[in-house]
């Protein structure tokens, strides 16, 4: 079909193609003239950059939109959205599109995936929540995020939850801990909400904090795998259990050293939650500010974000001082925190950097960090571009977990529901709740899969979306343009079109096969596979 059509260029999209004929790829990724004012966050970062003698360049509009969708929604923008954004002449359009993205339904699904990793929402090994409990827990997380529940309330609901694991989602916080002892629970709370690892604590601090979770009971019911989590001050339910503490008033110690008398008249978890979520508690606000920052910026201000301790200082102390002030000031509005980061120049920096610059400016956020798409986001992106679907299964029989084929990987509620692709690309096992469980480091087997597996090959060959684009009989340049918009969220440059024409002229593949090859190349490009 190529033979019949000349390589005409559609006027409708011509304006979108970078004017330069000389193929300077940097211009695809950067906008050297865009120079918005510094935000409050930038004013804490830029002095550091000035010390290093750099004034960072911001990313191009096309990169901005793709980055926004991937970082905030875990999905790619539609070609129509790309065209609308690129055509938008409003000087304030980036802030407006950030606002729109934060309101979209995918927001809750994507951030629930991150919380699902952290909270270990998984039916089976090793935390063994069981399918309906995992579903209940995930549903509660999604609803909390959708309603923008203040973060302090979100955490508090987990900490003080009572009830059935099947009916009260947040009680599963205590069940999703392998070591179900007061110390195990205290460690899990410290890791998730204080961003600290109790292994690095002085030995008595964990014991003092564990006392707050020493009156929790887990009671089975007659329903298979149902358990009631409740406060059990008299230890009637835990009698003979391994965690029965000595009777009578006891002392608990908050991580800041304050000693609290436990008298049995109030659930100690509430006492602890009061302390933890106090706006002046630096442990709490700093941890979430640092964690959200790391989710968007690729590394924590203090890194890793779940390893806060005095001898692991933040790379830019001003960003965390006063601790998490932005979080507290906004009454723990997580969307607001995300908005502040997205609107900063810092998040909008170009990712194009040399190895030497990266080494010189480590931890200074001078460049947006390149990293491979998360496993779930990557397969969703491939499916979206090709218009195909995926089968996800869980091996647990009772009740059998059936996942409809249209479900996107990002919104899978339960870490046990999976696919070989997700396993290969480093989806976290949800065993520890550690940030570093997720591995986005590439290995050759992943590239073998992307380059050459029947799985990906079949998606391209049977792609209904590609078929629809090709069958319109549009000129080849338009088809190429449509594929670039779909896969890379930008129009091709003239030089890129020429390269595709050269490939077509080689005659290795013709007709649909030619477009299979082009789409294959785009899906295997670093620009597709990496956040950039």
């Amino acid at each position, binding site marked *: 079909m190529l033979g019949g059509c000349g390589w005409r260029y559609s006027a409708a999209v011509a304006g979108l193609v970078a004017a330069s004929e000389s193929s300077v790829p940097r211009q695809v990724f950067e906008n050297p003239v865009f120079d918005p004012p510094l935000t409050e966050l930038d004013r804490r970062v830029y002095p550091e950059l000035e010390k290093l003698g750099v004034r960072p360049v911001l990313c191009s509009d096309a990169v901005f939109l793709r980055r926004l969708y991937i970082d905030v929604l875990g999905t790619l923008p539609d070609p129509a959205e790309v065209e609308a954004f690129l055509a938008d002449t409003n000087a304030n359009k980036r802030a407006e599109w950030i606002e729109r993205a934060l309101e979209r339904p995918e927001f809750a699904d994507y951030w629930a995936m991150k919380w699902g990793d952290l909270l270990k929402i998984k039916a089976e090994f090793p935390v063994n929540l069981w399918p309906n409990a995992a579903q209940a827990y995930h549903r509660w997380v999604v609803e909390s995020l959708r309603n923008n529940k203040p973060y302090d309330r979100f955490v508090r609901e987990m900490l003080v939850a009572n009830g059935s694991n099947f009916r009260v989602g947040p009680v599963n916080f205590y069940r999703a801990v392998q070591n179900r002892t007061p110390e195990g629970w205290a460690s899990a709370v410290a890791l998730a909400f204080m961003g600290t690892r109790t292994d690095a604590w002085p030995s008595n601090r964990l014991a003092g904090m564990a006392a707050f979770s020493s009156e929790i009971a887990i009671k089975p019911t007659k329903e298979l795998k149902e358990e009631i989590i409740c406060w059990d001050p008299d230890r009637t339910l835990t009698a003979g259990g391994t965690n029965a503490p000595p009777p009578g008033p006891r002392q608990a110690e908050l991580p800041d050293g304050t000693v609290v008398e436990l008298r049995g008249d109030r659930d100690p978890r509430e006492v602890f939650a009061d302390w933890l979520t106090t706006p002046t508690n630096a442990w709490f606000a700093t941890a979430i500010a640092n964690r959200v920052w790391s989710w968007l910026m690729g590394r924590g201000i203090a890194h890793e974000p779940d390893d806060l301790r005095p001898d692991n200082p933040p790379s830019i102390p001003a960003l965390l001082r006063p601790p998490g002030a932005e979080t507290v000031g906004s009454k723990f509005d997580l969307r607001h925190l995300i908005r502040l980061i997205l609107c900063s120049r810092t998040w909008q920096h170009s990712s194009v950097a*040399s190895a030497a610059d990266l080494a010189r400016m480590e931890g200074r956020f001078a460049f947006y960090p390149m990293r491979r798409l998360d496993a779930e986001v990557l397969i969703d992106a491939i499916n979206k571009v090709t218009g195909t679907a995926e089968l996800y299964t869980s091996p647990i029989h009772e009740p059998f977990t059936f996942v409809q084929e249209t479900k996107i990987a990002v919104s899978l509620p339960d870490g046990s529901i999976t696919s070989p692709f997700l396993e290969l690309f480093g989806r976290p096992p949800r065993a520890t709740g550690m940030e570093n469980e997720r591995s986005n480091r590439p290995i050759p*087997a992943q590239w*073998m899969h992307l380059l050459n*597996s029947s799985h990906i090959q079949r998606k391209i060959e049977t792609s209904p979306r590609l078929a629809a684009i090709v069958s319109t009989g549009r000129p080849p340049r338009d088809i190429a343009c449509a594929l670039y918009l779909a896969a890379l969220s930008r129009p091709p440059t003239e030089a890129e079109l020429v390269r595709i024409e050269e490939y077509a002229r080689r005659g290795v593949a013709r007709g649909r096969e030619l477009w299979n090859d082009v789409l294959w190349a785009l899906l295997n*490009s670093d620009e597709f596979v990496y956040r950039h």
Partner: protein
Amino acid sequence: MKRQPIRRRGGLTRRQALRQGALGAAAIVVGERLAAPARADAPATPPPEAKARSVIQVFLWGGMSHSDTWDPKPDAGHDYTGQFNRVIKTNVDGIVLSDLFPQLARQADKFSIIRGMTHGNNGHETAAYLMQTGHMPGERLAYPSIGAVFALFKGYQAGYKGLIPPYVVLTRPQGRFSEAGFLGSKFKPFATGGDPNAQRFEVEGVIARGISDARQQARRELLGAVNALPQAASDHPELTLSAECRDQAYDLILGEGKAVFDLSKEDPKLRERYGRHTFGQSCLVARRLVEAGVPYVVINYPGGWDTHSNHFQTMQRQCPQLDQGLASLLQDLHDRGLLSTTIVWCCGEFGRTPKVDWQPPWNGGRNHYGKVNSVVVAGGGFKGGCVVGATDKKGEEVVDRPVYPIDLLGSIYELAGIDPDAQLPHPLGYDARVLAPGEAGAKSTGRLKEIM
């Protein structure tokens, strides 16, 4: 700043270890192990001398009955044997097998049967974890399976240079627990996918249907031409790493490495001998992989052994294929002089109830039985022609020489020159060892010295 590893279980006093880990006879063995200098200040001991270069693990997912197969109890009565009450002699005096295994019976001098395998765990995933990690499922760390440990100690970090990844699964991963545990995805097995019994064994990611090598090469050039990000940021470390991984992938896709999966290079008669079914041809591929130097190959039996119902029909269908494939593998490895350096071990995660469950809905089925299991081991330093341990007349209790997962895996590690006490790199620097006899509930009666 790098922190010191945190000792969670290590640094036990000998007395503590004895109290925690040792029950009955185990005390002696565990005691011996700890009689070595305390771990904390122990000098790096040289690894034990390796007899085995490679391992082939045949895993019978679901749990194969022991009493219908390698530990037959023909006199236990119909309630126990059902229709399987016949045994056959092997080429070793005194060893009999169920008559479902005539070919293995002719190879009995090459393998030994552990009839005292026991752990008492009746859950599929926990028992599979226990059998393949040697660690107790209740521990808070998710340990890597033995294959991932081989990938760590015998893989690229240890000088392995092969193009084929060091830990290969034929043809599908089990997926019921993360096989690499805390070691991470780098140590996950490479699962071939495809069917080795098909006209062309389409190994996932290596051999693609309908793409000629010429087009593969042309595509690679097209990708290079349109790959804009590295053109803009040529030495970005992330992109450099990506390019390296892609190049390595192409070494297999376009290079010589993939020939190992090409079964058309084998004598058709030999292919027949292995059996023209997925399991038989998987065994043949396993031999080719071992010849190519791959340290650890798993064959996940293509079909389940979880025979709660349809037990007898399933066994009649699957056992002959298992018999043919496994026996041919042992014979072929032996003929090529590879058996002395290749460990072959075969079992499921547990045995099955020796008493048949005739009640509905099972109607003649066998259920999970962690108390007793049989394991076949051969080669790589394991003696053939022996039986280790024994069960009672009905196959319900181990009455002699119980063998625990840690004993079996410890023996395999020792033969392969991997120190079972070696440190595993935990991302948090926890004290994690290849095997840990001190874990709560862990039992041990010692390595399989009688057949090593």
